[in-house]
């Protein structure tokens, strides 16, 4: 353990001993931010922190992030259709349900809970019953049960003309064959089957029939689909398209259009697919060269870290202020190169000792108390 601490201290000392970069005196009149649109939750702390930072300094903040995906509307269509159904406007209810189900098929039921998804089908079955189309109504009841065979309709909420055929559909589906569905996706992606989140790559037992799948991965376009599962097992391997991402060239073009000498380039990314990481760089507009760079974690609760990093990046050094940035330095003269080289060397020397001396690095869990009978 002592050696681990020694190693860590050496690495830290090496990094710290690197000569600090000389800060710039000129204020930064422009901040340009980019974030993957799929990561709006992760991007919010960054936008909040930089927005506040910009407001306090009278700096312009431009967001070049690609436009976010349109919000799912299927839930809204469901609520409208329920209102229409209760007001005996069956045709309007049917239109709303068809639109909602079409969207669910396109997006893999994005934004719908399991009960909302099956409600779309149950209410369409009810509407079709009222319109005299019993055959299609029965199909929708079966589809709804296939999605969630354990569901039972609340008799207080649904009329007997819904609960009785639904119960018959439950009986029929329970006799149908089971299938094993696997959705292959990277571990950090969110995989949702029929409105329920599941683990990527884990086999799920499902009934034969239609199922809704969507997969959300940071920096990737949503994969959503409706699949017909037949046969004992089915593997879905989603194809993900990368989102178009603004580049530094886009930032430079924007900065030149604004007529500023330098700007702060803030780029949110997920290097390991999970952790939102913000790279802040001070860019010289005329040469396009990077003067300074800070990398900070950017998840929720990191607003102060982000604002602090931005402030450090743009604030002039009280000891040595340069009035102009000067020519770009050769890469081997940059302090961070020396810092990383030193840290790598120290790690290479000390790590074998540290690893060799460590005791257990894991533990076990055993649950007791009121365990299953």
């Amino acid at each position, binding site marked *: *353990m002592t050696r681990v601490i020694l190693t860590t201290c050496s690495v830290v000392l090496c990094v710290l001993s690197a000569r600090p970069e000389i800060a710039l005196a000129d204020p930064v009149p422009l901040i340009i931010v980019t974030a993957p649109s799929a990561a709006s939750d992760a991007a919010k702390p960054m936008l909040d922190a930089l927005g506040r930072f910009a407001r306090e300094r009278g700096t312009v903040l431009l967001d070049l992030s690609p436009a976010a995906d349109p*919000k*799912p*509307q299927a*839930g*809204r269509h469901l609520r409208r259709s329920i209102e229409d159904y209760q007001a005996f406007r069956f045709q309007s209810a049917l239109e709303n349900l068809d639109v909602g189900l079409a969207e669910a098929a396109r997006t893999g039921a994005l934004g719908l809970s399991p009960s909302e998804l099956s409600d779309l089908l149950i209410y369409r079955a009810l509407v079709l019953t009222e319109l005299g189309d019993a055959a299609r109504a029965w199909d929708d009841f079966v589809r709804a049960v296939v999605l*969630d*065979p*354990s569901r039972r309709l609340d008799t207080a909420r649904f009329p007997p003309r819904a609960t009785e055929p639904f119960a018959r559909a439950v009986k029929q589906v329970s006799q149908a064959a089971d299938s094993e569905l696997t959705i292959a996706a990277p*571990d*950090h992606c*969110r995989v949702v089957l029929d409105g*329920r*989140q599941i683990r990527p790559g884990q086999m*799920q*037992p499902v009934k034969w029939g239609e199922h809704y799948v969507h997969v959300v991965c940071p920096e990737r376009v949503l994969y959503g689909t409706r699949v017909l599962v037949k046969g004992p097992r089915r593997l879905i391997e989603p194809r993900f398209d990368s989102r178009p991402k603004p580049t530094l060239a886009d930032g430079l073009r924007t900065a030149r259009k604004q007529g500023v000498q330098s700007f702060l380039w803030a780029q949110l990314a997920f290097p390991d697919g*999970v952790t939102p990481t913000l790279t802040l760089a001070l860019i010289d507009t005329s040469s396009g060269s990077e003067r300074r760079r800070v990398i900070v974690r950017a998840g929720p609760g990191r607003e102060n870290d982000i604002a602090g990093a931005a402030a450090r990046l743009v604030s002039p050094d009280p000891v040595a202020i340069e009035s102009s940035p000067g020519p770009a330095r050769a890469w081997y003269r940059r302090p961070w190169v020396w810092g990383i080289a030193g840290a790598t060397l120290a790690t290479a020397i000390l790590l074998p000792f540290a690893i060799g001396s*460590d*005791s*257990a*690095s*894991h*533990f*076990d*869990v*055993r*649950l*007791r*108390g*009121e*365990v*299953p*009978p």
Partner: protein
Amino acid sequence: MKRVTVALLLIAACGEGVPLLEPIIDVPPIDSDAYPYGGVDELLVSVARAGEDVSLQEALISAGQSLLLSEIPFGEELVVHLSGRSSGIEIAYGRTCKVTVTADEQPPDDEPHLYLSRIVKWGISAAPSEPGRVGGHGYALPRGSAVLLGGNGGITSVERFDPQTGSFRLLSIQLTPRRDSVLAPFADGRALIVGGVDGDDNPVATVEVVDPRPGIAPAARRDEQEGPSLRYHAAATLVDDSVVVTGGIIPPGGQSGGATPAAWSFRFGAGNILEPALQLDATMHFARARHSMTRLGDELGADVLIVGGLGDTGMAVKEAELFRPLRESFELVAGATLTHARWGHAAVRLPGGFVLIVGGLQPPVSDPRPVAALELYDPIQGQFSSAGTLPAGAGLTDLTITELPDGRSLLAGGLDINGQPVATVLIARLDPVDGQVDVSATDSLAVPRAAHSAVRLCDGTILISGGTDAPGQDTERYNPPPEGRR
């Protein structure tokens, strides 16, 4: 052979044992709807870092197998999750609070408890030391324990429910007997109690600071000093950890008159000791009693929304105003006027900074009627809008509102339109697409309750205590859906 045996023994003697964390499963009674094991055909045990969806280690365990998980890497703020499944569907769930197991920090001697029950069900929980607590206060400590204190009828005890141990502990503090007081918790776990009256309706002109945190030497603490005499006032804790108290009636005074627009500030000074109450120069634009105060954000200087109440002439106040902490001033919000002037209501901040106004009473003051209409304050527009109506059977006054881990709000118990306690529990959710508040019913409480306390614990469950004198039913625990509880 002998040498091999000796060598193996030596290796075994030199090697360190693998630490073992042994969470203790607590479940509701077998005859309750919340009992988790009925119909469960497999259990999923997993360990993950708090807040992360991806597990460090997990195992699917069928009936009869031991609940064991091996080779979990050391880490801080780890959570043990346990899911019960029926045909692959998750129907029961429970988790521990955060635990740390590292080379330097071994599993705690008091093994953490894990409350496992059916999802969206209430189960009877451990019995408190002080049964029948009505009109008391409850709040959560930073590490997720619940503190219950005070109450009508001269209850002066303070007790703490620790989800790590699954039990209550009566603390060695006795409060000054008072009712109609206001409690404001501080970020470090201490809490301030202001105002109220004793059993003879005499004002209690002191404030108390209670410190029920575990590990406070030598035991839990209570400090008392002079404070304003108030009743039917309101308080809010600001981001800088000071407390602002506004309005109320200076006793003696009826419910319908004598409200004050004055405001006081409380903060800790040198030595972490509460400074004397400071009456602010600024006053509210309207005198108010039985109003609400809701902080609109978590950033330094976040405004506090003040809504409703009864004015100094006994008329209900429709206009809302803001307390601006950085300016220490009160400002009317142009156009922010309640459709239903009300008092004795509840207000809760929803995602996005919206504030939902629930229940309360509306004029005439001589014969007040409960309000079922919901109203929603939009902090960007600075306006109220109608947000629907609570269904029949819902609690309209003396209910509790608790934020669920998934961002929705749990409305539990209270007095209905006829003034009778109800067992109804509703969930309110702000629809981010159309901005409407969806209200849906969930599992009811075992017994009707009003003027009870509700606290969200560190494992995401909701503990409700008091508000009833039904024997053996003092405390219930709600198991919300697993979303947001990782």
